[in-house]
C-alpha cells in the first residue's frame, strides 16, 4: 500500500510543480512576441507610447521569466527524484528531446534576456530589437520541444522495444507524431489568449483607477483585439485537437463526454456527476445527440464509451472520469466567457468611441478575467494529462511503473512545502503586477534597480575612475 501512497503523492507533487511552472511560460511565450510588436511599432513610428508600453510590460515579462526559470529548475530534478522509471524505459527518446529543449531554447532566452531587459541604453537599437526577437523565438522553441515530448507520450511512434527499453528508429516520426500539430497550436493559442486577457485586464485596471495615459489605450486595444482574434481560432483548433484525440485516445474523449457505453445518438452532457461505482452518470442534463454530431458530424454517429476500456479481469484502463469530465467543462466555460467578453468589448470600442467609451460595466469584468487564461490552460492540461492515465506513455508504460521508491512521508513533506511556497509566490506575483500597474497609473517611475547612492549617472559610461560623491 505504501507504494500506492507514494504514487498518488508523487503524482500530486508533479502536477503541483508543473502547474505552477506552466503559468509563467504561458505568459512569456506570447508576451515575448507582443513586446517585439511594441518594439517594432516604436522603430517604425518613433512614437513614445509604444516604448512606454514596452517598458511597462517588459517588467511583467522579467518577473514572469524569473518565476519560470526557477520553477523550471524543479522540473529537471523531478524526473530523477520521483520518476526514475520514466527515463530508464524511454530515456533514449525523451532524452534527446529534452536536451534539444535545453540547448536550443533555454540558453537563447536566458542569455539574451539580460540584453533585452537592461540593455536598452547600452546596445544599439537593432541589437536590442534582435535580442527581443531571440528571446521570443527561444521561448517558442522551448515550448515546441517540450510539446513534442508531451505529444509523443500521448501518441508514441517511431521506436522499438529492445529488452524493455525503447530505442528510436525514426526521429522524424517521433518529432512529428500525430498529436503534435494540434497540441502545439492549441498551446500557443492558449498562451496568446492568456497574454491578451492579461494585457486587457491590467489596462482595464489602470483605466479604472483613473489612468488616462495614451500608452494604456494602446495596450488595452492590443489586448482586446488580440483576444477577439484568437478566441475563434482557439475554438476551431481545440475542436480539431479533440477529433485527433478521439482517433488516438478514444477513452480520454469518452471520459471528457461522460459517455459510458459505445453507442450512437450520444447526448452532449452539460452537467452530471460521473459515478464510477455504478458506471453511469448521476443527475445528468444533456442535449440529445449533440456529442455524436460534434464528434462524428451525424446524429447517430457511434462514439466509443468507457466500458470498452475495462480488461476482462476488471482492471480499469481508462482515466478517472470525474476530474477529466469537470476540467474539460471548466476549460470550455472559460473559453465561452472569453469569446463573449472580447467580442462585446471590441464591438463597444469600434462603435462607441474607442477605449474611452468603455464603462465600468466592461472594465470590471475585464479585470476579473485578467488571469482567465491561466484557468483555461490549467483546465485543458488537466483534461489531457489526467485523460492519459493510467498510462504515462500511452500503451508503453504506466505511471505506476515509473514512480520512485521514496518513502511516502518524504513525498508528503516536500509536497506540503512546495504547495505552501507556491501559494505565497502566486499571491506575491499577482499583487506585484497590480502594484506595478497602480504605480504606473499614478505616474511614478519604477526605478527597478536603483543605482548606488550618490553615484553620477554613469549608465553607458564605463568609467572605472568615477568617484563616488560621498
Amino acid at each position, binding site marked *: 500500500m505504501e507504494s500506492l501512497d507514494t504514487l498518488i503523492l508523487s503524482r500530486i507533487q508533479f502536477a503541483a510543480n508543473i502547474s505552477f511552472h506552466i503559468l509563467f511560460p504561458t505568459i512569456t511565450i506570447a508576451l515575448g512576441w507582443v513586446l517585439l510588436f511594441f518594439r517594432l511599432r516604436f522603430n517604425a513610428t518613433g512614437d513614445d507610447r509604444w516604448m512606454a508600453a514596452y517598458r511597462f510590460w*517588459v517588467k511583467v515579462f*522579467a*518577473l514572469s*521569466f*524569473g*518565476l519560470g*526559470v*526557477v*520553477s*523550471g*529548475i*524543479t522540473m*529537471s*530534478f523531478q524526473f*530523477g*527524484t520521483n520518476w*526514475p522509471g520514466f*527515463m530508464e524505459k524511454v*530515456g*533514449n527518446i*525523451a*532524452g*534527446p528531446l*529534452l*536536451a*534539444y529543449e*535545453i*540547448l536550443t531554447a*533555454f*540558453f537563447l532566452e*536566458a*542569455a539574451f*534576456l*539580460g540584453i533585452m531587459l*537592461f*540593455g*536598452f*541604453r547600452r546596445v544599439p537599437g537593432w541589437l536590442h530589437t534582435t535580442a527581443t526577437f531571440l528571446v521570443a523565438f527561444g521561448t517558442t522553441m522551448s515550448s515546441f520541444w517540450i510539446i513534442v515530448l508531451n505529444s509523443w507520450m500521448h501518441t508514441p511512434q517511431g521506436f522499438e522495444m529492445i529488452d524493455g*527499453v525503447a*530505442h528510436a528508429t525514426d526521429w522524424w516520426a517521433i518529432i512529428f507524431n500525430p498529436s503534435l500539430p494540434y497540441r502545439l497550436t492549441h498551446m500557443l493559442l492558449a498562451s496568446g489568449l492568456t497574454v491578451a486577457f492579461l494585457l486587457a485586464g491590467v489596462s482595464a485596471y489602470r483605466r479604472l483607477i483613473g489612468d488616462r495615459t495614451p500608452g494604456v489605450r494602446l495596450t488595452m486595444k492590443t489586448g482586446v483585439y488580440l483576444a477577439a482574434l484568437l478566441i475563434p481560432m482557439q475554438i476551431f483548433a481545440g475542436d480539431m485537437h479533440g477529433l485527433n484525440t478521439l482517433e488516438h485516445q478514444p477513452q480520454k474523449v469518452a471520459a471528457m463526454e461522460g459517455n459510458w457505453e459505445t453507442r450512437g445518438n450520444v447526448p452532449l452532457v452539460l452537467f452530471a456527476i460521473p459515478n464510477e461505482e455504478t458506471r453511469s452518470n448521476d443527475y445528468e442534463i444533456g442535449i440529445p445527440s449533440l456529442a455524436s454530431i460534434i464528434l462524428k458530424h451525424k446524429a447517430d454517429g457511434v462514439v466509443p464509451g468507457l466500458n470498452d476500456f475495462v480488461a476482462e479481469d476488471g482492471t480499469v484502463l481508462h482515466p478517472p472520469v470525474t476530474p477529466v469530465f469537470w476540467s474539460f467543462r471548466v476549460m470550455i466555460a472559460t473559453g465561452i466567457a472569453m469569446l463573449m467578453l472580447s467580442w462585446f468589448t471590441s464591438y463597444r470600442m469600434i462603435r462607441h468611441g474607442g477605449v474611452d467609451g468603455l464603462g465600468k460595466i466592461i472594465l470590471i469584468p475585464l479585470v476579473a478575467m485578467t488571469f482567465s487564461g491561466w484557468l483555461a490552460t490549467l483546465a485543458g492540461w488537466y483534461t489531457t494529462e489526467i485523460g492519459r492515465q493510467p498510462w504515462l506513455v500511452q500503451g508503453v508504460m504506466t505511471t505506476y511503473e515509473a514512480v*520512485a521508491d521514496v518513502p511516502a512521508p518524504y513525498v508528503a513533506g*516536500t509536497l506540503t512545502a512546495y504547495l505552501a*511556497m507556491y501559494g505565497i*509566490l502566486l499571491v*506575491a506575483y499577482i499583487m506585484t503586477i497590480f502594484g*506595478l500597474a497602480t504605480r504606473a497609473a499614478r505616474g511614478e517611475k519604477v*526605478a527597478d*534597480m*536603483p*543605482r*548606488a*547612492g*550618490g*553615484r553620477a549617472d*554613469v*549608465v553607458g559610461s*564605463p568609467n*572605472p575612475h*568615477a568617484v*563616488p560623491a560621498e
Partner: protein
Amino acid sequence: MDMIPSPETTLPVIFAALMGFSILVYVVLDGFDLGVGLLMPFATDDEKDTMIASIGPFWDANETWLVLAVGLLLVAFPSAHGAILTALYLPVFAMLIGLILRGVAFEFRGKTDTARGKRQWNAAFVAGSLLASLSQGYMLGVYIMGLQSTQITTGFALLTAVCLTGAYAFIGATWLLMKTEGDLQRKAVLWAKRGLPGVVVGLGAISLATPLVNARIFDKWFSLPEFAFLLPLPLMSAGLVGVLWLSLRHLPDSADRWSWIPFLASSVLFTLGFVGMAYSFYPYVVPDQLTIYEAASAPESLFIILVGACIVIPIIIAYTTLAYTIFRGKATGLSYD
C-alpha cells in the same frame, strides 16, 4: 577495453566531459552570484542595491548551466540521474527551495514599493542563497562518501556544506571587488581576506578526505607514476592561494588595474579542485556503483544529442561572452529603460 574507439566507449566519455564542463561553469558562475547573496547581510542598503546590480544581467543564464548539467545527466546517463537524485531526495529539495526563493526575491525586490517589502525580499534572497549553497555543499559531501548515509558521512557532508558555502562567499567577494568601487570595494577586499583561510581549509579537507575514505581513489592518486603527473595540481593550487593572498594585500590599488586578478585566480582554483575530483571519480558516475559506460543511453540517442550540442554550445559560449562584454566594467544602476 579495445584499442579502436567505438561509439559505445567514446560517446559516454564525451558526454561525461560535457557534463563536467557544465557543472564546473555552473559552480564558478552561480558560485559568485550565490556568494554575493551570502555577503548581503554585511552591506548597507545602498550597497545591497549595487551588489544586486552587479549580478542582475547574469543570474538567469548562470542558473541555466545547472539545468544543462542536470539535463545532460538526465539524458545521457538516465539510470545514474535516477540513482543519484533519489539518494539525494531531501537535499535536492532544499536546494530547489533555496534557488526558487532567491530567484523570485531577486525579481520581487526591484518591484516592491515599500522599504519594508524590499527588506523582506532582501532577507529572502539571503536565505535562499544560503539554503542553496549549504545544500549543494551537503550533496557534494554525500556524493564523495559514495551516496551512503551513516553518521560519519552525514558529519562529513555537513563539513562540506559549510566549506562550499564559504568558498561561494569568497568567490562572490572577489567578483564584487572587481565589479565595484569605493567603500563597497574595500569591504569586498576585507571579506575576501577573511574568507581565504576558510577556502584553504575546505579545499584541504576535501582533498584529504576523498582518498582516505575510498581505497580506489587512494590508489589512483598515491601510486607511481601517477603521483608525479598529478603533483602539479596541488602545487598550482598552492601557487594560486599565494597569488590570492598577495593580491588581496595590495588591493584596492589607486588605479584599480588589478582588481580582476582575485576573481580569475579563484576561478582557476575552483577549476583545479574540480579537475582533481573528476580524476578521482572517473570512470564512475555513481561512486563505485555505476560507470559512465554502464549508465549511458543508447549510442544512437547520444549521437543525436551530440549533433545539437556541437552546434549550440559554441554559440552559447559566444553569446555568454557577448553578454559579459556588454555588461563589463563596474556595476551601475540597472534599469529597464
